[in-house]
């Protein structure tokens, strides 16, 4: 108990006197021109789709995305939302993946072929009802994203003691958001400033608090071959995965911004109406 209290007291003192941290303050990320950054901005779904591919092929080896289920990828406003629409040339019904330009009938994420295909690539464990054994089966859209490690200890053991953070809300949990993710992923390769001591097993990155990050540079050229043929440059991959993580952290952002216009418009009209009502009622009264 004594020790616990001392720890708490030490933490408290740290919060009072944190000047030592000044030395380790990170470089501020440069703001990028994101399509979603503006008040009414929307996601560039092609970029979010590519970003998912980067997550799946690169990040997911160490980072979980525990707040998301595979079905979320096929939600309205998600990168793999599917719509059934008629092809105007052939007249045949076909399924289109991605944001719907010409409407069509939305397909439930559980029946979404793209989402089912993505989920089926991963195994999840479940308890067999007849034997009670833990068995593996391919994931379904309703399953949560599979985590790369069974627990934090396993994650640390596999990563030299560092814990790769869950990425569900990473853009909201860091100052700078998507700018920070982009800057961090493309910020390797600089020599540390003179006088800064090297930390063995870590990599210098001026955008990371403290300067030394356990994650090695990941987005090397051609690391991912994009299905849409986009160039697989580190810049492109970082931009796309930052877009994907922004969407993953706040999937309702588009709906929220759209609804905001209607709500603010309504409130503005109501405010004006009340103002004129106020003027009318107080017309004869001195105040």
């Amino acid at each position, binding site marked *: 108990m004594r020790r616990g209290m001392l720890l708490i007291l030490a933490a408290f003192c740290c919060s009072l006197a944190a000047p030592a941290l000044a030395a380790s303050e990170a470089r501020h990320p440069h703001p990028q021109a994101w399509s979603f950054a503006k008040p009414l901005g929307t996601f560039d779904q092609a970029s979010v789709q590519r970003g998912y591919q980067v997550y799946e092929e690169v990040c997911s080896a160490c980072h979980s995305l525990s707040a998301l289920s595979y079905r979320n990828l096929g939600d309205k406003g998600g990168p793999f939302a599917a719509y059934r629409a008629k092809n105007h040339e052939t007249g045949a019904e076909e399924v289109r993946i991605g944001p719907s330009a010409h409407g069509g009938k939305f397909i439930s994420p559980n029946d979404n072929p793209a989402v089912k295909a993505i989920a089926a690539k991963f195994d999840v464990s479940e308890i067999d009802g007849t034997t009670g054994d833990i068995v593996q089966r391919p994931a379904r859209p309703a399953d949560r994203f599979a985590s790369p490690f069974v627990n934090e200890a396993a994650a640390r053991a596999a990563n030299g003691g560092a814990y790769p953070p869950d990425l569900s809300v990473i853009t909201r949990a860091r100052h700078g958001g998507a700018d920070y993710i982009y800057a961090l992923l493309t910020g390797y390769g600089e020599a540390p400033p003179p006088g800064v001591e090297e930390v063995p097993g870590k990599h210098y990155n001026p955008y990371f608090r403290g300067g030394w990050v356990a994650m090695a540079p990941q987005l090397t050229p051609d690391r991912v071959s994009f299905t849409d043929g986009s160039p697989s440059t580190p810049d492109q991959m970082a931009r796309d995965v930052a877009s994907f993580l922004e969407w993953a952290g706040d999937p309702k952002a588009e709906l929220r911004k759209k609804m905001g216009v209607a709500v603010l418009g309504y409130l503005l009209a109501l405010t004006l109406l009340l103002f004129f009502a106020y003027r009318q009622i*107080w017309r004869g009264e001195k105040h």
Partner: protein
Amino acid sequence: MSGPSTYVPGSAFERWLDQRLPIMRLAHDSFLAFPTPRNLNYWYTFGGILSFALVVQIVTGIVLAMHYVPSISGAFASVQRIERDVPFGWLVQNIHSVGASMFFLAVYIHMLRGLYYGSYKAPREILWILGVVIYLLMMATAFMGYVLPWGQMSFWGATVITNLFSAIPVVGDPIKLWLLGGFATDNATLNRFFSLHYLLPFMIFGVVVLHIWALHVPGNNNPLGVDVKSPADTVPFHPYYTVKDAFAMAVFVLLFAAFVFYAPDSLGHPDNLIPANPLVTPAEIVPEWYLLPFYAILRAIPDKLGGVLAMFGSIGVLFILPWLDTSKVRSMRFRPLARWGFVLFVGVCLALGWCGGQLPDKAVYQSGRYVQTFEYRTAAGAIATGAISARTSAELERRAHAEEARIGAAMITMHASVAPFQIKVVQLSQMLTLYYFGFFLLLLPILGLIERPGRVPDTIAKAVLKDAATAERSA
């Protein structure tokens, strides 16, 4: 309520009801016919706005509690579930978290309005004290609410604040143990904070009823601070103030909605979206913006118990404010000196809020640079002296290391570095804290005795008619 009742039952049923439960009479006398000074300005609309904010918090909170999981393993994920899977959960959650900030914004304006127009003076002392009780309950509720998402700031905020109680001699440690429900911030803490976070708003609601009751006995104060003397001074609450309050509330809700829909995260700290981890202390532990001034006062005092006493004292002093202010004049409109003291007080509170968000050792003002001199042996073997300077001590240290690396550690002797004159955040906080207490404990008692107030109008009606006449002449 003030004056005889003017309620006339309109139907046989209302007459029947009135003889058994005069609830319609109460509503009529309190919110329809209630005579209200005709000169209330927009600063007086915040009482209504606050009632609205309380109802919004209670309604959204009840919905959130249906989906929230109060356990250390489930809390963080359940908030994400609310935002992602509960229909319109993101909206309810945003309204509740932004609503807390809007509630405090409104309460600060409401309190400062009361301070400026002397609404705490006789016969409204109880009204004011009930208001301070509501404010204290609000702070406790908001603090416990911030713990519930179980992010890093939740955990460490709970740890730091409960730890403050251990500074109290003798009973401090048992109180802390009782608050935490154990020796550390843990599941028991989260569970009792959830329970209390659900309870306290209803206590606030109860005190609000008393607050409105205490308001309706003497009636509203007003910007002139003179008593209502005749019916010419007043207008009925409805429709005059229902419509004015409704208009002001709509403007307030516009601001509220702008945050909810376009910047829902901007009022919180990003660290609270990192799940709580007892083994990792965040780089900075800061409370929400509305508690920052008190955090600055806490840190301004170098002694822990002293800091805690000053922090609680800064709210405690509000309880005795009605007896500290010796002036007979209510409204600061007619108090040329107190008025400037008030303006400065508002500035000091804002500055304290700024200080609360900064690292205490950060320099607010610095007269020059950090300088370090050293001696070293040149290639020829002679001893030379050199100097380096930097804006911050960390930068200086880095340069010193670089210099050592360049010349060779064995060949160089560093002297002690010289720091420039600085005013640090903690020192600024001390000066501001001094004014905060000085305003209540010295300025208000003394000014009331030495200040020559301006001429206070005899009645509200007279002043209002005179103003209107001047406005007409100039128009």
